């Protein structure tokens, strides 16, 4: 059965089960997202994709809300945008450094006109792990969106990554927080591919970006125990 919804004044026909976010894509209406990745099941954690739906008392997350027939959706709604902007601002306030311009977080902040945070104060501790030949952790950039954990589970099926800590200390870890190589990681890199902040990224892309990165030892034979950079 197909449903008709109106997004920003444009009617569009969608199949049952389509989310508001998917419908918005059909009419090229931009909805900001942080925790969403097409390859993963919708998660609805970040609250950046809020939109107004006629008759709803408050903004709804576009990624997890299924369309209903005759729904009228406004992606430009001022309240929703204020929520999204505040979320991005709060997320940025926790980071000790601004995310690199190519990251999804930086691009969304840019598009939402979030330049500085009104909430200075505590930021994440810097914690780098460059022991894996390809994959790097930059824990201070983690915003706990869960995309890497879900990529590991739903795209690769390695179940190597997990969320750790609580509240402000929330972060990600491979296995029992002993690094990628000592977990069930298969080095597919789906986590680095989906990460919106470069909290997990490719080592080669850090050349010239992280100046204190030690050269990686390249000896052969036996299990290597490489030093942690600055934990």
């Amino acid at each position, binding site marked *: 059965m197909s449903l008709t919804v109106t997004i920003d004044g444009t009617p569009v026909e969608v199949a049952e089960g389509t989310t508001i976010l998917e419908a918005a894509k059909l009419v090229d209406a931009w909805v900001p997202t942080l925790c969403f990745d*097409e*390859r993963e099941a919708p998660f609805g954690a970040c609250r950046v994709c809020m939109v107004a739906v006629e008759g709803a008392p408050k903004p709804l997350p576009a990624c997890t809300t299924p369309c209903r027939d005759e729904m009228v959706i406004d992606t430009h709604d001022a309240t929703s945008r204020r929520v999204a902007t505040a979320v991005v601002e709060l997320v940025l306030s926790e980071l000790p450094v601004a995310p690199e*311009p*190519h990251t999804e977080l930086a*691009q969304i902040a840019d598009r939402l006109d979030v330049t500085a945070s009104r909430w200075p104060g505590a930021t994440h501790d810097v914690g780098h792990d460059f022991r894996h*030949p*390809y994959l790097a952790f930059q824990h201070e950039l983690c915003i706990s969106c869960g995309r890497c954990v879900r990529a590991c589970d*739903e*795209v*690769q*099926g390695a179940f190597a990554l997990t969320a750790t800590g609580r509240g402000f200390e929330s972060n990600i870890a491979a296995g029992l927080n002993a690094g990628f*190589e000592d977990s069930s990681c*298969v*080095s*597919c*890199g*789906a986590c680095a*591919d989906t990460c919106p902040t470069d909290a997990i990224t*490719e080592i*080669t*892309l850090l*050349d010239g970006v992280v100046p204190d990165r030690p050269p*990686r030892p*390249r000896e*052969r*034979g036996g299990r*290597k125990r490489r030093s942690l950079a600055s934990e």
Partner: protein
Amino acid sequence: MSAIEADRFDKTVTTTCGYCGVGCRLEAHARQGRIVSISPAEDGPANEGHTCLKGRFAHQFTRSRDRLTSPLIRENGELRVASWDEALQRIVSELTRIKDAHGPDAIAGLASSRATNEDCYAMQRLIRAAIGTNNIDNCSRVCHSPTSFAMRKSFGLSGATGSFSDIDHADVAVLIGVNPTQGHPVVGARIKQAALRGCKLVTIDPRRIELADYGVLHLAPRPGTNAAVVLGLSHVVQREGLTDEAFIAERTEGYEAFEELLDAYTPEAVQEISGIPAAELERAAHLYGEAGTASLLWGLGVTEHKYGSEVVQLLCSLAMMTGKVGKRGSALLPLRGQNNVQGSSDMGALPDTYTAYRRVDDEPTARLFEEAWGVGLSRRVGYKIPEMFDAAIAGELKAMYVFGEDIAQTDPDIAHVQRALESLEFMVCQEIFENETTKYADVVLPASAFLEKCGTFVNAERRFQLVEASIDPPGGARTDFEIIMTVSRMLGHEMGWETPWDALDEVARLTPHYAGVSRERVGRTGLQWPVRPDGSDSPTLYDQYFDRTGGRGAFAALPYKAPGDAPDREFPLVLVTGRVLQHYNAGTMTRRTGNADLVDRDWLEIHPDDAERLWISDGDTVSIRSRVGATELDARITDRIERGHVFTTFHFPETRTNLLIGQSSDVNTSCPEYKVVAVDVRPIAEQPAFTPQLTGVA
């Protein structure tokens, strides 16, 4: 590319992965002439925005310091740097001399399943038109040639009947002799996700592969007994009435003989042969037979046997008797090993066929190519790879042109291969690195890797996909296509192409099955052959009829026969060889990347009981000896393997795993029997694994 991306990368090119047969579409990001990063293409039909550590990370080999960057020629027993002119002159004068003295059949060429369709097409044209012989083969000979042979016999076409997306629609998937999470990681991930969503997996493998943990049933047959297992499954399907009578009657032929053969393969009889408990075999047959949709997937664990091609025919028969072929979710998917092992054979780099498997002794086909190329062509079927080695030792084959294949590491019975290569008067290697084979070469030509060339690959779903260069070949290296065209021109046969796309157009013009293929039409998401002239392709084959004369599928009444090797008192264990996730075949590429930091050696996997009996501890160096050779490996004790079996990989040349493999091979296609080798394993550690206690020590 956005402004921000332009800051990070000079260019981003969408291409197709050059590792395994899955055919992931990749975005290759380059800066200052080097690949800095590779990410998966979101619209890749085979990978859907995912890729594995080989496709994504193992690209540093392209700028490895050992890359061949100038031609080498042998002088006084040593290879020395030479100019292109000198190297090409040497090739032309030697090949001409040998052709004049001994005839064209004294020369043979190998095309590469790692290279593009256009490279392979050019290579077979060089050998057929410029040299004048059908002595051309490619490495599918040693992996899926039995699949190709059998699927042509049973169904008509040499390729998977469906697509990887059929896995998402299958109620049951039966994996036999294939370990996708290691060998085909992106398909492995797809199967795992399907299993997590409820697709029932049945895994049939002597080793307990990772996917067995996600399946409903794992059967561990003795290596070499697949035929009995498939016949046993068919027996139960037939006995329980799980057959699709209408499908058998309307779409197939030869069922009566097949049905008659099945009588003998009761689960109890199969248990006797394969070691699989009868009840488990029954359960597997019920799972497959009762499923609404079920797909069969297999790999080299089926093909690399003495009767590998017959087992594939039996698998086809099993699918036909249940009507599970040519439907969404019911596909037969052979997981092809290399990126273009499908394409290199499709392009006619085989001793008996032109493009699309049309025989060289078929008069109209030969005429078609004679007319197109303007030369007379041989009607005599050429040497297969193993026959080339035998002919070289017998003195009948004098020269070889080996392009992109390390035969002295990957082919069976290395000692025999070495003797063959030493017997040759002249050998050319066209390679990206020096390897075991170049040690015997008289001329080595520096060629290019998949990130440095343009063309197309055909993946395991029969899908033509574009390959576009993101970086240039290093130093004096040239693209394979250019090298082959130049050699051909100097031998007096002008191919008349400028770019690989011209070669692709010629293939399309001369091959009805690929008639609609062109660079533009292949585009971002590929085309699955047969491609009709209007450009429409074929994701699913045989939904209406089979591609044989008469349109019916053929049952094969082939009984189980014992494998070519069997354990005995002297060689009590059975060795099976395979790949690991981190490395790729001969390891030429992956050993030169960070993947070597993840896995830096071949291991011998052995069951704890065997290890204890042989006084082997985890990590000990052991000697492993077969009827034809011996080597040394470090042991890894694991209960993923059955008692009586050992397993190893063949990625590191220092191991020389293939010294152990004998010359037993598939009866129809000469594909070597890599998967059943009787061996003897003993500890050789300097410090014995078990040291007797000294008296007086607590």
